[in-house]
């Protein structure tokens, strides 16, 4: 009677068997998610119909009809909304790229300065970090825009540097290079110098493997990079003519102009994020035990080499993950530029275009996808790098 030949262990009632319960919960969860999704979709559709808004992305082909203060690609008022999208995307990418590069440089400097044996440098870096990272970034953008750049004199009273650079409340004006007859030899010489430096580096490394003698690659490459193009300038003339900014009427014409909105947002974001990166770098370096420094010193390695060969490679694996989230923060904070009217994704696309077309769902979806795409790309890149430098243990 007891051996029924059934192999599976006796199961309890439906409500006490964990496996059956797990299935039940799964099914309930799926039903809830589908129901909410359907409600949202249906609700949106009905509301759009009630208000007579056509959905879809057809509006992208319509003419925008408004001007943009900074565009990296050609743009006129008659261009389409899709062109506006591209302008906004490039402006966001420009702010993000400039911000990331500057914040990284300033941040690493701050991090090392925080650990300096020099009391004054250490204190200054500490005060900087504690001040800057405790002030909201939007306020810092306003500070640069309204307190630093707005009070600058108008174009006619511009501050000037050697009659070449002009700073006023409309931006920073500088000469723009225009191709001249001497351009091609210059580019070719530059290319040769770059390729030469790469080969030189490779040769020097091979020689060090073979003979142990190091070679001053940095200085020789620098020499190559300066001398070769310099020579072509002497022989075949200047590669670029300069388009000078000239005061005409009430403003400057010609040259390149960096608008104050861009300066404000880049300054504020890179200085703000640098404070966080500085702390990240400091903690990364401090996470490497002092025993590592002692072991390297006891082998006769000089402090510079110890930092480069032993400390930094180990600190990086602690620094990279929080550094990644700082980069992501910077990209997302670049949307704060909307507050001072810098034409990036949010102010341009989720702002002006949305107001003009009323296509709220589409513009929002596009704008959000852009930030998602940029952020995920940065994450993936940084994770690949992090994996490469990870420690192997067991």
């Amino acid at each position, binding site marked *: 009677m007891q051996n029924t030949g059934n192999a599976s262990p006796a199961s309890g009632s439906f409500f006490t068997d964990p496996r059956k319960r797990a299935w039940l919960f799964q099914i309930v969860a799926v039903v809830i998610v589908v129901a909410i999704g359907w409600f949202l979709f249906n609700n949106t559709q009905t509301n759009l119909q009630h208000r007579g808004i056509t959905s879809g992305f057809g509006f992208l082909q319509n003419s925008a009809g408004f001007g943009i203060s900074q565009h990296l690609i050609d743009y006129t008022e008659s261009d389409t909304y899709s062109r506006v999208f591209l302008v906004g995307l490039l402006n966001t990418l420009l702010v993000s790229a400039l911000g990331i590069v500057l914040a990284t440089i300033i941040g690493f400097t701050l991090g090392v300065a925080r650990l300096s044996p020099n009391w004054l440098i250490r204190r200054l870096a500490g005060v900087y970090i504690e001040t800057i990272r405790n002030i909201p970034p939007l306020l810092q953008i306003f500070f640069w825009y309204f307190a630093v750049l707005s009070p600058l004199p108008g174009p006619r009273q511009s501050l000037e540097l050697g009659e070449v650079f002009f700073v006023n409340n409309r931006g920073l004006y500088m000469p723009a290079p225009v191709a001249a007859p001497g351009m091609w030899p210059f580019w070719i010489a530059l290319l040769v110098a770059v390729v030469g430096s790469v080969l030189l580096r490779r040769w020097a490394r091979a020689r060090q493997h073979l003979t142990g003698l190091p070679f001053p690659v940095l200085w020789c490459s620098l020499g190559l990079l300066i001398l070769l193009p310099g020579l072509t300038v002497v022989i075949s003339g200047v590669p670029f003519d300069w388009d000078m900014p000239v005061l005409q009427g009430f403003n400057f014409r010609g040259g390149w102009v960096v608008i104050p909105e861009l300066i404000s947002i880049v300054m504020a974001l890179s200085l703000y994020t640098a404070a966080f990166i500085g702390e990240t770098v400091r903690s990364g370096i401090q996470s490497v035990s002092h*025993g590592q420094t002692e*072991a390297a010193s*006891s082998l006769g390695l000089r402090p510079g080499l110890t930092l480069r060969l032993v400390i930094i*490679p180990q600190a990086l*694996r602690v620094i990279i993950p929080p550094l990644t989230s700082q980069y992501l923060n910077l990209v997302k904070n670049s949307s704060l530029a909307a507050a001072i009217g810098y034409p990036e994704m949010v102010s341009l696309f989720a702002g002006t275009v949305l107001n003009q077309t009323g296509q709220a769902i589409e513009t929002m979806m596009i704008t959000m996808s852009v930030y998602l795409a940029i952020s995920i790309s940065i994450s993936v890149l940084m994770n690949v790098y992090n994996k490469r430098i990870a420690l192997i243990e067991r």
Partner: protein
Amino acid sequence: MSEAIKQAVVSDKMMIHMQGVNKWYGQFHVLKDINLAVTQGERIVLCGPSGSGKSTTIRCINRLEEHQQGQIIVDGTELTNDLKQIERIRSEVGMVFQHFNLFPHLTVLQNCTLAPLWVRKMPRKEAEEIAMHYLQRVRIPEQAHKYPGQLSGGQQQRVAIARALCMKPKIMLFDEPTSALDPEMVKEVLDTMIGLAQDGMTMLCVTHEMGFARTVANRVIFMDKGEIVEQAPPDQFFDHPQNERTKLFLGQILH
């Protein structure tokens, strides 16, 4: 075996000379008038209760710690603030730490070749040959391409010894090399050190392995409260200690 080691050549050439060395950490007087002369091939064991200054003493020899008074001469070079001289001494003096301090981001082989490549400016091939030679010597050549994290404590400490030997040092300093090891791994490390002693390496060793001291040392030095209390050949030191503090210490560690 003991006798073979004892007869290993000890020459008259002075390798380390410490004279009137004093050191303070703030108000705390860690080293009190240390006088110590070590000749080539001598093997010295330093022991004493914790905080007695034995580690600090050997760490002064390669300037991991700075002494504030007195004179330290290592292989004819005086330790001063001159960075060049400190570097020269460090490349002549190998050190093994309690916690191994291997570089975890480098393979065992790279750990061993790092200093020969960058300090001695040796060709890579030669550096790797030397590294493999010493890895063979500590009996773990098959681990050369693993990372320190993949090895046992005893293996890591042997790699650390090989890493120091790759610089072909004239003096080896050991700072409690077996204190962080599981009991079953102590022997493999001590055997490696005994092998070094047989080859006539000048060694200063902070350790509580009294069996090792008896077998290998020419001289055992007992330190307490920052001063050298007693020093004698091992037989005399263990069997007929003179000072009361030495007797007390030996009574506590030899059961």
